[in-house]
């Protein structure tokens, strides 16, 4: 998987309430959730973001609630992937499970500014900041998670295991 897109940069400890406020959790419709993605951080984000854009954030992205609506909202508003210094653990798990590509890289976060264009290769972890002419390497995705991705996500791997009754 390769992506090329424009950076939307966010700070540290972006919690799931800012990614998708709880007042919109009375639905799980991705299109509806997408309209309010990052609303309390940047009210215009959902209308400005373009398909293929990339969220770059500081540490502990996605902290707080276990709501899978958070990665769903991000993916549904067109964001191709999220690069952060670190992710909160439930958000990390949820993203793999529902298919939002995420990578961890200190250097890429240090270098990227709002609006920079990045090329990301999910398979190799290569991040190319085209605007600044810099190349970074993301922390490798654990082999187990890579297997999960190759199997098509958690539910696909369970279906293949023949345990669905």
């Amino acid at each position: 998987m390769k992506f090329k897109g424009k950076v939307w940069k966010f700070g540290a400890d972006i919690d799931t309430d800012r990614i998708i406020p709880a007042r919109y959790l009375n639905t799980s419709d991705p299109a509806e959730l997408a309209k309010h993605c990052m609303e309390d951080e940047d009210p215009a984000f959902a209308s400005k973001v373009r398909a293929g854009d990339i969220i770059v954030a500081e540490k502990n992205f996605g902290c707080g609630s276990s709501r899978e609506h958070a990665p769903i909202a991000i993916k549904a508003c067109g964001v191709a992937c999220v690069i952060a210094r670190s992710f909160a653990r439930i958000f990390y798990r949820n993203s793999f499970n529902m298919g939002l590509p995420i990578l961890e890289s200190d250097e890429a976060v240090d270098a990227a500014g709002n609006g920079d264009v990045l090329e990301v290769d999910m398979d190799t972890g290569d991040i190319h900041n085209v605007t600044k002419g810099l190349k970074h390497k993301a922390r490798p995705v654990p082999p187990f998670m890579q297997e999960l991705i190759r199997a098509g996500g958690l539910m696909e791997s369970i279906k293949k295991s023949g345990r669905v009754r």
Partner: protein
Amino acid sequence: MRRMTITEKILAAHAGVKEVVPGDLINARVDIALGNDITAPIAIHEFKKAGATRVYNRNRVVLVPDHFTPNKDIKSANQCKILKEFAIEHKLTHYYEGGEVGVEHALLPEKGVVAPGDLVIGADSHTCTYGALGAFATGVGSTDLAAVMITGELWFKVPESMKFVFKGKLRKWVSGKDLILHIIGDIGVDGALYKAMEFTGKPIESLSMDSRMAMCNMAIEAGAKSGIIAPDKITKAYVDKRAERPYKFYSSDPNAAYSDVIEYDCSKIEPKVACPHLPENIKNVSEIKNIPIDQVVIGSCTNGRIEDLAVAARVLKGKTVAKHVRLIVIPATPHIYNEAMKKGYFGIFLKAGAVISPPTCGPCLGGHMGILAAGERAVATTNRNFIGRMGDVKSEVYLANPAVAAASAVKGRIAHPDEVVRS
């Protein structure tokens, strides 16, 4: 044999192996899988999409519509209906609604649905509350819940454990809530990222179950995978009359390996307040001067239990809520509601000018039953003070224990309980 922590022992037992080491990836048997009205609809959708027709065990899949209930609007009502229909179709033993439903993390221990030694997953981040019973309990997302509903198992990475050792005597008005706020203030909102927090020491051994639950509840607020307290005679007294299944007590081996061991002296810990907009922004209540408030919420999966209402009643007895302050008291379960009524707390609350809400998560997550307007400020016994958490993006939430919350309601500003109660 490797010396293991309580967390490692529970995980090893559920993975069917003799020992585990932090970093190991295991497939473990899940005792209880929980979903609520926000997270379960997605799990049920995934369950159906996978072609599943049976849950792995109808006694072990638990659905608790507690967040936007009593149904706050048509959309929420439709979400709740998904849970109800699924529960009926699959004959789930543990589905609660109407006058039976309470805040999930208060309800499940109270009903004996979760027990010591269990491995519990819940599609709710505060599932870590059950660590107070000596269970391994962690929050996951809806897809993970769907996987467990089908298979009864889930993959886990064995976490490193962090040991928190408390010493000394608890000061007046200090509860489990203050101890966990103190820790979060010390290590930060990602200070225990991916780790298991183990709370130990003499003061913990004499802590009530309600206070232990408040502590483990907020482990997630330090980024942890779980929080746990070794079960003891206090745990036994609590679970013996409740547990619906045989349970098992685990404890950490002496000299088990920890990534960190951090000691705290309780004699130096005062009632705490977490200031906006992160639970790590901790101050002593006594340091906070003249912060006027508009609302006080006493409730939630952190502090909506009987001990919490008792201390609030103690502070509010014979007092009146300050003019222009809304005090909302939310007993976390129907049982707690009934207890509080029988003990006479409701009379005290009503006389003070409080509103008593039915059990619900409600305002904690800005759902309903007490939403803040722009510029309004609340003191809440809940667990998160993120931007916009209880309402408008320009509102503020200060987290505190129930005594501080009650005293603040009386004073109309953030206040120490000693300012209200003469000892």
